[in-house]
C-alpha cells in the first residue's frame, strides 16, 4: 500500500511546521493548507486519506469545513483544538469529525491518533467490500446477524442496551462517539439522567468485555466528550 496522504489544515506556522516535520520523519505524504477555502480545494484535488483540521481558521469556520467535507466523503477528520473549548469539540464530533487532539499535544500522541484514523479507513474499506456480518477486534467477536458477542470464543451475555452500545461503538470503530450521540441513538433523548444511565451501562459493559486480568481495553473514555472503540491486535 502507498504511504498515506495527510491534509494538514492549520493557520499557525510553527504548529504547521511541527506537524510537517513529524509526518516527514514517519514517511507520511502530506499537503499543507492554512485556510478553510484552500483546504476544501486541496481536499477535492488531492484525495487525502486523513485530514488534520484546526477549528480556528482565519477565513471560514472549521465546523463549516467539516460539514462540507462530510457531504462528499467519510474520510477520517481529526480536529486540533485549544483547551477550554470542550463544547466546540463536542459540536465538531457531532458534526462528523472522528477524533480530536488538544493543544498542546505531544508528537507521539499525534502519531497514535493518525494510526487509529488510518486503521479506521482500512476498516471502512473492508466492511464495504465484504458487507460483513461478523465484527472482530482482538478477542472480541460480534455476530450482528445473531446478536451474539463472544470473548475468546466464550459467549458474553449482554443486556439489550449494553449490546446496543457495543454495536454502535463497534460499527464506528476508531471514531469518538459523543455522549449526546450515544444517548440519542439509545434513548432518543439527551437528558442528564440519560448520560448518567449511559455511564452505568458503559461501566457494566466494560466489566464484561474487559476483565481486569486481561489488561486490554477496547473502549476508551474521553472524559467530558464521549467514548471510542479502539482496534486491538489479537492476543496469542
Amino acid at each position, binding site marked *: 500500500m502507498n504511504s498515506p496522504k495527510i491534509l494538514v489544515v492549520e493557520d499557525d506556522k510553527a504548529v504547521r511546521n511541527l506537524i510537517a516535520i513529524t509526518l516527514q520523519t514517519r514517511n507520511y505524504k502530506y499537503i499543507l493548507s492554512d485556510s478553510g477555502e484552500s483546504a476544501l480545494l486541496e481536499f477535492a484535488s488531492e484525495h487525502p486519506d486523513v485530514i488534520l483540521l484546526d477549528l480556528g481558521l482565519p477565513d471560514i469556520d472549521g465546523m463549516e469545513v467539516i460539514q462540507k467535507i462530510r457531504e462528499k466523503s467519510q474520510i477520517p477528520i481529526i480536529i486540533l483544538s485549544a483547551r477550554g473549548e470542550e463544547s466546540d469539540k463536542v459540536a465538531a464530533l457531532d458534526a462528523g469529525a472522528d477524533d480530536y487532539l488538544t493543544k498542546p499535544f505531544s508528537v507521539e500522541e499525534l502519531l497514535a491518533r493518525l494510526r487509529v484514523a488510518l486503521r479506521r479507513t482500512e476498516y471502512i474499506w473492508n466492511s464495504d467490500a465484504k458487507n460483513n456480518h461478523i465484527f472482530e477486534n482482538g478477542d472480541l467477536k460480534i455476530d450482528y446477524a445473531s446478536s451474539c458477542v463472544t470473548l475468546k470464543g466464550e459467549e458474553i451475555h449482554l443486556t439489550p442496551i449494553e449490546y446496543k452500545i457495543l454495536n454502535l461503538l463497534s460499527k464506528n470503530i476508531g471514531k469518538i462517539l459523543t455522549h449526546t450521540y450515544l444517548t440519542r441513538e439509545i434513548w432518543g433523548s439527551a437528558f442528564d439522567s440519560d448520560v*448518567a444511565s449511559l455511564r452505568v451501562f458503559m461501566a457494566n459493559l466494560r466489566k464484561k468485555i474487559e476483565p481486569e486480568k486481561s489488561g486490554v481495553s477496547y473502549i476508551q473514555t474521553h472524559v467530558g466528550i464521549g467514548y471510542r472503540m479502539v482496534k486491538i491486535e489479537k492476543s496469542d
Partner: protein
Amino acid sequence: MNEEKKHQGRLKIFFGYAMHTGKTYAMLQEAKELTDMSNDVVVGYIENVEGLETILKGLECVPNRQLMLSSPEVDIDAILARHPHIVLIDHMAHTNRNGSRHLKRYQDILEILEAGIDVYTTANVQDIVSLQDDINKITGEHSSETIPDYLFEQAHQVKFIDNEPQYEHHYSVETLKALRELAIKCCAQRIKKLTSLPSKSHFINSEHILVCLSPSPSNAKVIRTAAKLASTYQARLTALYIAPLDKKLSKKEYQYLQENISLAKDLQAQIEVLNDNKVVFEIAEYARISGVTKIVLGQSPTHFFQRSSLSEQLVRLAPQLEIYVIPYIDERSIFKLVRPQLTLNRQDFMRTAGMLILSTLIGGIFYYLDFKESNIILIYILGVLMTALITTRRIYSLASSFISVLIFNFLFTSPRLTLRAYDSRYIVTFIIMFIVAFITSSMTNKLQTSAKDSAQNAYRMKILLETNQKLQKEKNKEGIISVTCHSLMKLLQRDIIFYPVSKNNLEKPLIFCQSPKDTSIFQNEEAVAKWVLKNNKHAGATTKTLSNALCLYLAVRIGDKIYGIIGIYIDDKPLDSYENNIMLSILGELALSLENESVIKEKATADLKAKNEQLRANLLRSISHDLRTPLTSISGNAGILLSTGTILDEDKKKQLYSDIYDDSLWLINLVENLLSVTRIENGSMNLNLKVELIEDVINEALKHINTRRIQHHIQVIQDENILLAKIDARLIVQVIMNILDNAIKYTPDHTTITIQSYLKDKNIYIDIADEGNGINDKDKEHIFDMFYTANRQVADSRRSLGLGLSLCQSIIQAHHGEIKVYDNSPHGTVFQISLPAQEVEIHE
C-alpha cells in the same frame, strides 16, 4: 407636572360655554394655520364632522383610520405610533365605550400627553366636575360626562371661544347668559390661580381640608363643595372614608361609594380609608394627626331620636377645627336608621323568648318554694343580662326587660294574673329592673362590638406579622414573591398572578391559584400588565383603565422603581375597603422586601467584583514573575542550541533539550490552572456539570502525569461500586492532577502515592495519600490560601506559584464538596476530596 423628569406634552383646551359655539371649528382653524406654517399637526379624533369637511381636507388624520364613523373612540396606539407634534382630539369629557382602554377620553389624552405629544382639545363649562351643582341650578340638567378640575386648571393654555351659538339652541337665552358668565368666571379664576400658584409645595404650610365620604348619592355635593373650598383656599384636599367594621355595604351602597371616591379623585383629593366603628373619634384623630384645618361634612336635619349630630360631636372632640356643614335631605338615610333596628333576626328572637320562658319557669319554682319576690326579680334581671349576651342587638334585651317586668307583674305580684299592682313599691321595682336591663344590655353590646373590633384588628396584625416574618426568612426574590403572593391568595381568597419586572420588562409570570384549575383566566391580559408597567398606574378590573380585564393590576413599587406587577382576580366581586387596605400594606411590604433584596444583591455583586479584582491583580503580579523564569530557561537553552549547538557534545545537548521540555511542560500546567482561574467569575465557577464516572476521572488525571519521567509508584484502589458524581470533569481532573503533582514534587522518589476512591454516607471520597515528610500543622491551616507555598525558603524559586491548592479548594467548593488535609500514618499527607454522590435512575 413632571416636566423636570421627562418631556410632557402640553394641553390646550378650546373652552366654550355651550354646544355649537364653534370650539371645534376654532381648534381646526388653528391647526390649519399651524400646518401651513409646517408644524406637525394631526387630527386624532373629531366627533361630528358635519360642516367641517372643507377645513378638514387640508389636515392629516391619524393613519390607517377613517375618523368618520368607523372608529368611535380615540385610537391611542395609532397616535403614539404616528407621534406627531400636536394631535387634535375633540370633546375631552366624552365617556368611552365599554371595552375601551380607558373609561374616559381625558385619560386617553393624559396618556398621549405622557408620551410627549401636545394635545388640542375642546370642552364646555358644563364638563367641569366641581361646577355640577351650579350647572344643575342653571340648566336643570345633570351631566354624566365630566372632566376633573385639575385638567382645566393645569392645562398649558385655555382658549375661551366666545361665539354666539350658531344654531337654534335648546337652551334659553337666559340660560346661555348664565352659562357664559360661569365660563368667563371659570377662566378668570384659572388665570388668578395660575399667577398665584408657583408650585405644589405651598401645600405644606397652609390649609388642609378634609371631606368625609359616605356611601350615599348626596355625598357628591359635599365633595364638590369641599373641592371648591379647597380651590379657593388653595388647600390640600383629603377625602376620608371610615368603613364600619360590623356593617357590610349593600351592592348599591358600594356603587355609590365607588362613585364618590372616584369623584373625589377627579377633584384631586387624596383618598384615605380607615376601618373603625367610632366614626367621630376617627375623624377627629385623623384631623389632628394630618394637620387638617377645615372639615366639610354633609348633614341631614337631625331627628329627635338622634343623640347629637356628627358636627356637634366633632366640635366637642376637636374644637380647633373649622367645620362646614352642607345640609341635605336624604330620605334614604332616615329610613336606614330605623330599618335595621326593626328587622328581627329569627335566631335572636328565639333566644330572647327562650330566656324569658326559662326565667319564668325558675321564677315559678321559686314562687312555689315560697322564696322572696326579690329573688324572682333577680332571676329576671339575670335573664335579661343573658339575653344581652347572646343576642346581637340591644332591642332584644330592651324588649326582654320590658316583657320581664310585665310577666313579673302578671304572674308574681298580687293581684296575680292581672297587670295591676296594688303596692306602689312595685312601680319602683319595675323602673329599677328596666334601668338595670338597659344598662347591662348597653354594656354587653359595647363589649361585643369591641371584641369584634379587636378580633379583626388582631387578625390583620397577625397576617401582616406572619407575612413580615416569612419575608424576613426569604433571601431571594422568588421566595419573597412566592411567600407574599401565597399569603395574599389565602387572605383574599382570590387567584393571583405576578409578573416580575427586570430592566423594565415583564418576565415570565408566576401564577398562584387556590385550586389547580384553569390558569386561563390570566391569559390575554399581559397587555394590561404591560400598560401598568409603562404608565406606573393601576389598571384592570374596578379601575378606569382597561376595566374589561378580569383582574386588577397593580405595580409593586418603591417610588418610580417597579419591582413587579401583581394581578388579582376580581371577576365582578370587587375588594372591600378592608381587603384593599390590607392588600396595599402587604404589597408595600413586598416592595420593601424586593428593594432590600436588590440592594443586598447589588452590594454583594460590588463586593465580589472588588474581591475578584483584587484576586486578579494578585494573580497577575505573581504570574509575571512565575512566567519569566521558565521562559528564560527555554529561550536561553534554545538560543545556546541554535548558536553553539555544533560544539556541544550529545550529553550536554540532551540535557538542554530535556530542560526545555520540562519547562514547557511546567508552563502548560500553569496555563491550565490559569484557564481555570479565569472561569471563576462572580464568585462561583461557571461549571459544566455532567454525571461522570469517578474511575474515568481518576484515569484521565493519571494520563496527564508523565509516568515515565517520575520515580514514584502510583497505586490506584477503586471502589467495587460504580461511583457517579455530577461534576465538571475537566476541573476535577485538574484538582487530582494538582494534588498528584504536589505529592510528586514534595515527596522523595521511590515512595508510593495511593489514590483511593470510595462511597460513604452518600458522598464520594477520593483520598490521595503520599509517604513524604508530611505537612506541619501550622502550614495545614494556610495550605489552601492563595499564593501560599509550604517551603517558604524556596518560595522565590520558580515552582512557587501557590495557586494549585487554593484553586483545588475553589473548584471543590463550587461542587458543594470538601477538601481536607490530614496526616498519613506512619508519615506523609492525605488529601481528601469529598463530592456529593449522584443517584442514578437507570433507563432501560
